[in-house]
């Protein structure tokens, strides 16, 4: 079966006055229909640039390196231009960002913004589009959707605005949803509701979801697989239960030990030393090396990502030594 999305060797370069940096440096993953893959990492890991690159929405200073491919159903979407690209964006691949307030147009009613998207992508009349917009708002959990249709973004709470963004994202029945920190700005009770909503959509519509988050807790109970990003590269990828149950990369282990837990007996979090390096000063050899408690001589050379167990890949010399 062809995966819905297959990303190979994605590289994003940014040209700075003095130098060129590669904040996304050879990212590869695949995603099936109805599957949720989480891309997790701290700030500066390259998560958001990965998302933007897939839709060719990179900022002007950034560009894709030759050899980067992203196949949507076998078609390279990084090579698309003009009309062909427009037919993919919003129609087959939708994206929602963290800050729904900034993504919505403040002078249009939220209903009109959903309707516009429906009309832009589907062959419907204005009245049909309006009816579909109302039903979408209702499906996304907005109470009294016909009334909410007439409201402006500033009249809604952050959670409600994110529901509107999801209605817009799903308006054209996309196959792939890229959700970049969709709940990070929301209160925890609202966050759980929005995640439940995204999860429902992928189960009922077979939507593929690329969920990007800095929070391993958020993805733990929703994602099928998790890829951990550090300094522009995937350092570990595994089925969710395996990643949490048997994390193999020292960075993944450090991240898990740093997260404060609410359930179970009290455990003081144990901090990892240092911080994520800047792309201009990535260490040679293993990029996590300088922070790694398990570092040994071989870590001065660059590890490749290798299969560790079925469906479980790790970029670490330790796991190679263990095999």
């Amino acid at each position: 079966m062809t995966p819905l999305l297959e990303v190979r060797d994605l590289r994003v370069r940014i040209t700075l006055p003095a130098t060129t940096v590669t904040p996304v440096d050879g990212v590869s993953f695949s995603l099936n229909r109805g599957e949720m893959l989480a891309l997790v990492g701290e700030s500066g890991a390259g998560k958001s640039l990965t998302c933007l690159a897939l839709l060719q929405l990179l900022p002007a200073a950034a560009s894709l390196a030759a050899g980067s491919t992203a196949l949507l159903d076998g078609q390279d979407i990084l090579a698309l231009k003009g009309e062909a690209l427009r037919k993919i964006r919003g129609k087959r691949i939708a994206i929602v960002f963290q800050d729904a307030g900034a993504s919505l147009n403040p002078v249009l009613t939220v209903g009109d913004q959903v309707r516009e998207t429906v009309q832009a992508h589907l062959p419907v009349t204005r009245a049909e589009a309006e009816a579909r917009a109302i039903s979408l708002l209702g499906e996304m959990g907005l109470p009294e959707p016909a009334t909410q249709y007439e409201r402006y973004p500033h009249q809604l709470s952050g959670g409600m605005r994110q529901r509107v963004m999801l209605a817009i994202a799903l308006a054209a029945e996309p196959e792939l949803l890229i959700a970049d920190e969709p709940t990070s700005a929301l209160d925890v009770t609202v966050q759980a509701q929005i995640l439940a909503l995204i999860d429902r959509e992928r189960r009922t519509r077979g939507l593929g979801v690329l969920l990007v988050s800095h929070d391993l807790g958020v993805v733990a109970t929703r994602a099928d697989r998790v890829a951990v990003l550090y300094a522009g590269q995937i350092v570990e990828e595994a089925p969710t239960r395996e990643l949490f149950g048997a994390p193999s990369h020292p960075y993944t282990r450090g991240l898990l030990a740093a997260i404060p837990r609410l359930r179970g007996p009290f455990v003081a979090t144990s901090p990892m030393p240092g911080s994520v390096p800047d792309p201009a000063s990535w260490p040679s050899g293993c990029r996590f090396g300088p922070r790694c408690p398990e570092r040994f001589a071989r870590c001065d050379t660059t590890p490749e990502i290798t299969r560790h167990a079925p469906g479980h890949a790790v970029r670490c010399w330790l796991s190679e030594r263990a095999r």
Partner: protein
Amino acid sequence: MSEPLLVVRGLSVEYRERELFGHGRRVPAVEDVSLEICRGETLALVGESGSGKSSLAQAIVRLVDVSAGEIRFAGDDVLAARGESLRRLRRGMQLVFQDSATALNPRMRVGDAVAEGLIIHQLVPPAERAGRVAQLLEEVGLDQSLASRYPRDLSGGQRQRVGIARALAVDPALLICDEPVSALDVSIQAQILALLRGLQQRRGMAGLIIAHDLAVVRQVAQRTMVMYLGRVVESGPTEAILASPRHPYTQALIASAPDPDPSLGEVTPALRSDLSTARPEGGCPFEPRCTHPRRDARCRAERPALREEGGVSSACHYGP
């Protein structure tokens, strides 16, 4: 045991809603909140946006006006303090903000920012100032060479450490931290939490930590107060609340919290809607979102009072 370090009784804070014309409605941000913090103890105020937790903290240090209530700090009446006595009180209670990028003056070197309190309160002779600043930086885990740098040269975690060093400079009896780690990456967050725990142990300082994240609070606070729309809905020892939350809101907050453990299964939020800021007149503030099986007309008509049982207080007519 003598009087607690901080005593707050029946505190309320109101804001006026801004309107283009007319006076604007009065909006209660904090309603009738009482709390106590003993020396060496850390209390957490937990709640989501709009819960009034930050307004409460700001009222305690007199950054916003109080519409009713009483605040006593180390035996002094905080609300009556003026001039020199207010300055002395503020030295005793230091505030650390969430966003260290905006809390620090961008044109002031790190060393000068840390020394500011020493100068204002005339704590150290000028000749010894640089040495004291170096000590403070070391205490928060920063290299003393950073003293000559500007905030923009620092990472978010380093800036937050500077904010803490600045507060420690005047040797406060109470450290108030408003969302000290919520803007930080997980690995940096753990570093700051470890620093705060270390300070509690070394200095025996009391703390008031404001946070939306119960798991963060658990790392540093012995007691927790859960706030909802300006009111306290549950209060008690942190571990007791986490082990058996009584108020339906606390239960929802805990159920919604994302723990990094897939075996927990899906988080099912037991709530009827997103946060509604419409405050029901007279009734329970949480009633519009509550899923308690016994929720009824009484919840809409009568405001539940805090009732204590086994060291934990909660404000629900029907309990768990």
